[in-house]
């Protein structure tokens, strides 16, 4: 059934968007910074994951190493680039972020070469069939399952553990949180670490789904993730998730039925504009 397949494909794409946008929304919620350079961590994750998986022969090791490296790189970005700019108006950090993304893209090209890299032996390519003639690659199913799992875990951690509650407190009222003994620096570092690790996680999946890792692969994600967090309502985690999935499905149908007039990104942004015209605060933003 074509409709079912299109929805499924939309959810797969949406899961990837969700992983990337989630990190962005965590950073925005905490620091009101539009962290465009987040997409560079997506690309870094794809490179590191591929190289690690090829060298060690283990996909799990590839994921783990990639997530740790991206997490640390994200913290480094915060410490070196954003922290000194916290007292400046928000557009300063935004411009710095864009510059950082461009620099990162060029660095990848210089270090890894302009040509795309592919896996030596591509994992998780087996096919799994469902009723209704639906057929998916193992990797496609796992990315959706993985996303759901991670988001569930994060949600639990955020509401039911001390650290999670501390993070939420820091977002709502940093000064009060600090007076309760919460270390702002630790919370911020953790925030960037987790968000960046998620971007890296997404990067490994995309590298595997396409069997292609190239320096410019984050370019669409860099601005589309921004669109997603606006769509979901700036700062709302639940909103971001739902916006990502909805956008994936909208693109899926849009590219088929409107493909002659608009391309995928145009459809995404047209949808964003339509939603904002009706609900300026985004799908789940606080009015």
């Amino acid at each position, binding site marked *: 059934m074509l409709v079912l397949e299109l929805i499924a494909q939309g959810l797969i794409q949406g899961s990837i968007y969700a992983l990337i946008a989630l990190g962005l929304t965590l950073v925005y919620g905490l620091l009101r910074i539009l962290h465009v350079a987040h997409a560079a961590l997506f690309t870094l994750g794809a490179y590191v994951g591929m190289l690690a998986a090829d060298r060690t022969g283990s996909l799990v090791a590839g994921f783990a190493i990639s997530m740790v490296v991206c997490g640390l790189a994200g913290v480094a970005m915060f410490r070196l680039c954003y922290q000194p700019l916290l007292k400046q108006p928000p557009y300063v950090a935004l411009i710095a972020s864009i510059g950082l993304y461009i620099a990162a893209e060029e660095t990848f*090209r210089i270090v890894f070469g302009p*040509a795309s890299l*592919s896996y030596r032996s591509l994992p998780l390519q087996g096919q799994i069939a469902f009723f209704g003639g639906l*057929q998916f690659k193992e990797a496609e199913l796992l990315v959706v399952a993985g996303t759901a799992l991670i988001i569930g875990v994060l949600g639990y951690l955020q509401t039911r553990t001390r650290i999670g509650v501390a993070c939420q407190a820091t977002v709502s009222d940093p000064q009060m949180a600090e007076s309760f003994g919460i270390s702002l620096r630790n919370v911020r570092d953790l925030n960037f670490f987790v968000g960046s690790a998620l971007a890296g996680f997404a990067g490994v999946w995309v590298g595997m789904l396409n*069997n*292609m890792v190239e320096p410019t692969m984050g370019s669409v994600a860099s601005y589309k993730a921004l669109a997603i967090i606006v769509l979901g309502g700036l700062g709302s985690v639940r909103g971001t998730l739902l916006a990502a999935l909805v956008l994936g499905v909208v693109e899926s149908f849009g590219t*088929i039925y409107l*493909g002659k007039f608009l*391309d*995928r990104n145009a459809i995404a942004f047209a949808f964003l504009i339509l939603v904002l015209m009706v609900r300026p605060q985004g799908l789940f933003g606080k009015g």
Partner: protein
Amino acid sequence: MVRNFRHAFIGAIVMVAGLGASAAGADIRIGINVPLTGFAATDGKSALEGAKLAVAQANAKGGVNGEKIELVVYDDQASPKEASPVATKLVEKDKVVGGVSGSYSGSTRAAAAIFQSAKVPYVVAYAIHPDITLAGDYMFRVSAMGEVQGRAGAKLVSTLGKKNVVLVTIKNDFGQALAAGFKDAAPKLGLTIIKEYEYGLQDRQFGALISALKADNPEIIYASGYFYTAGPLVSQLRAAGITAPIIGQEGYDSDKFIEIAGAAAEGTLITTSLDRDSTAPATKAFLAEFPKAAGFGADMVAASTYTATSVLIDGLRKTGGKGGEALKNALAAGKYETPIGNLSFNDLHEVNKDVQVQVVKDKAFRRHSVISDPVLLAAPTKAK
């Protein structure tokens, strides 16, 4: 007396300086615009290596009338915005006698206008948009135009005995020219285009498109793109269980396509200009020399840029290094034996030649067939 002496002295200095300047600028300069950064960087690198090989080989044989050829290289990022200042620099600052395009259609179109108004001959390697040669008579193209290739694709479908086709077109100059040619020839050959899908240059995941295509159940798929879109596309098509043959074009013509698509690439057909199994001496020599010089295998982009550069150098040999109208006429009248075939230009400075069909077999491009149909594959002339 003193004043005359001073004038003479200044005059002598100016003369000597002038001689010195012209002696320093004795190298023959040809310019090339290639995408060295950005999404097309891999093709740009390949193109540049092809051009460099042609220049190196020419210089080894003594250059042009004993003068060395210098290749002035600029990165245009495959973007029209970048190509315009690059072309202006080549023409005004570097004062090149001829130019080569090693870039895509969008950027080449922008540069073509500048070369034409400066009356500097511009030989285009693989950019296939029709408007490029329509920019004027200083433009030359060594590759078959997009529409011609599209018609060749339709002919290939008909030769394979298939009738129902689905088109998957990349939304840019390249894809649209190919699709136009295919749609032009299809009714004449009795083909039915069931559906046409389009995708953007930046798309790498085609889940929705493939789901819809599967429902169409075509006998054969004509998909345009570059190896970085075609690789994932073909891989995902096969993973979804679609077994219909896939015909690509020279955008697929790179070992990278096979690397990305892996086992899914087997059996993919492409219409291109480089025959890996060629017996022609120019082609065999190029296929042997290029990997030694560049460090990676030859592809269509390298072969056509090598050809464009060689054609330009050939013309320069005939004019003794002069550019302008003399070079234009020399190029127009020449007959060239190149890795991509025996070429000569028609009055629109397009080439008429056979189209090579290659197939991916055992992880490499091999000869499948040759499409030789002078009527169908005729390049447009000034009359049209």
